[in-house]
């Protein structure tokens, strides 16, 4: 119950002698959450997911998946990487049969078929003849059919049309509702994840910039409009800009705000953008473990 779905401690990955792709990442994701991994291109999102899937070994630090080493946890984890690797010479039907054969005893044929059914896919079609979006459906079908406890999806919606995106996101949420599946999905389009996710992992410059329940993160920040020249201390400032006579800022308040400031709760997108625009913005203190455990 209290075993986190994903837990990283000072996790880092370096490819050869190049710069660090990911460094000093520490976070924990409670089980049962739907987590958005958000960040600009090249931020380290894919590296993080591949480390969690056990496809890469960390250069330093540790990552634990469902309380175990990623390699041990693999039978309980579904992973769809960005390039959706499938066997091009197999047909759709053969690919699903392969999924059933590789997951004896826990293959959910019904869910797998529903994932491909919406796409009007001919089961006799070979994978190599499919469009990018159709291939995504088949890859998701394989991952869902495995009935995993943790689903790791790297840019799952990138090549889907809006209708397919809505339908497959609905299917994913349905799995999460029915089986308590933890879902971790990366994207650089925040708006597309806002309604579906309840947890955020913001990655930027190889670091975890923000991590926590989205409701808590939004509640901890305030978007304020104040007269130009207003003193923002002692609040922690994520971003501040002055236009004419007006100062607008995103802050983490550490006390009551003056009466002449207008204060709003930021949207998720505003919050994410304010951190990404300001790489030097201080990271919030991690939530005490006791709070995470209580959820």
């Amino acid at each position, binding site marked *: 119950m209290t075993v986190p779905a994903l837990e990283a401690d000072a996790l880092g990955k370096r490819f050869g002698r190049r710069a660090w792709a990911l460094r000093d990442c520490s976070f924990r994701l409670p089980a049962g959450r*739907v987590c958005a991994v958000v960040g600009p291109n090249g931020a380290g999102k894919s590296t993080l997911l591949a480390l969690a899937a056990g496809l890469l070994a960390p250069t330093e630090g540790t990552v634990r998946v469902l309380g175990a080493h990623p390699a041990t946890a693999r039978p309980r984890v579904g992973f769809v990487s960005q390039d959706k690797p499938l066997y091009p010479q197999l047909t759709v039907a053969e690919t699903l049969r392969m999924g059933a054969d590789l997951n004896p005893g826990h293959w959910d044929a019904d869910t797998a078929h529903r994932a491909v059914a919406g796409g009007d896919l001919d089961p006799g079609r070979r994978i190599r003849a499919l469009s990018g979006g159709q291939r995504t459906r088949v890859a998701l079908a394989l991952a869902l059919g495995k009935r995993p406890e943790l689903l790791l999806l790297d840019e799952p919606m990138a090549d889907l049309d809006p209708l397919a995106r*809505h339908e497959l*996101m*609905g*299917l994913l*949420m*349905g799995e*999460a*509702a*029915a089986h308590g599946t933890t879902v971790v999905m990366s994207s650089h389009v925040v*708006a597309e994840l*806002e*309604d*579906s*996710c*309840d947890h955020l992992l913001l990655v930027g410059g190889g670091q975890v910039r923000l991590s926590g329940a989205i409701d808590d993160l*939004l509640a901890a920040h305030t978007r304020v409009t104040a007269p130009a020249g207003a003193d923002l201390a002692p609040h922690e400032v994520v971003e501040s800009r002055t236009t004419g006579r007006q100062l607008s800022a995103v802050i983490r308040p550490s006390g009551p705000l003056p009466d002449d400031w207008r204060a*709003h*709760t930021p*949207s998720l997108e505003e919050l994410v953008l304010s951190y990404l625009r300001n790489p030097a913005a201080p990271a919030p203190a991690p939530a005490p473990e006791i709070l995470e455990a209580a959820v």
Partner: protein
Amino acid sequence: MVDYRIDRRSGVATYVQIVQQTKQAIRLGLLAPGDKLPTAREVVEATAVNPNTVLKAYRELEREGLVEARRGLGTFVRRSLGAAPADSPLRAELEDWAARARESGLEREDVAALFTAVLETHYPEQAAHAASAHTPQGDPS
């Protein structure tokens, strides 16, 4: 049955939209006492919203005494709301009034403004209460 439609641009928190649409359905008699709400799975498959959002909305409705969760069976409507079922005489009068408003050349916005103004004259407290209930996550700007 109720079919939730989530408007992401409305500025109203998603769980509040589900609460409001459920109440609206109960008020109009589309949901009657004893009726079953759709399961969280059914709602999230249709809307692609997070399951916890739906559960939060259902908990809120339960807290208000409108529905009750029966373990393993689902969530059921406990009581009706207001006295304005879809086929009441009051509704017929309002239909008649709306038709006349349209005939006399009023635009949709004119009618909505007029109706809201009259509503607020007769239900001042409730209007203030409804507004404050939205503020926690909704953005007024």
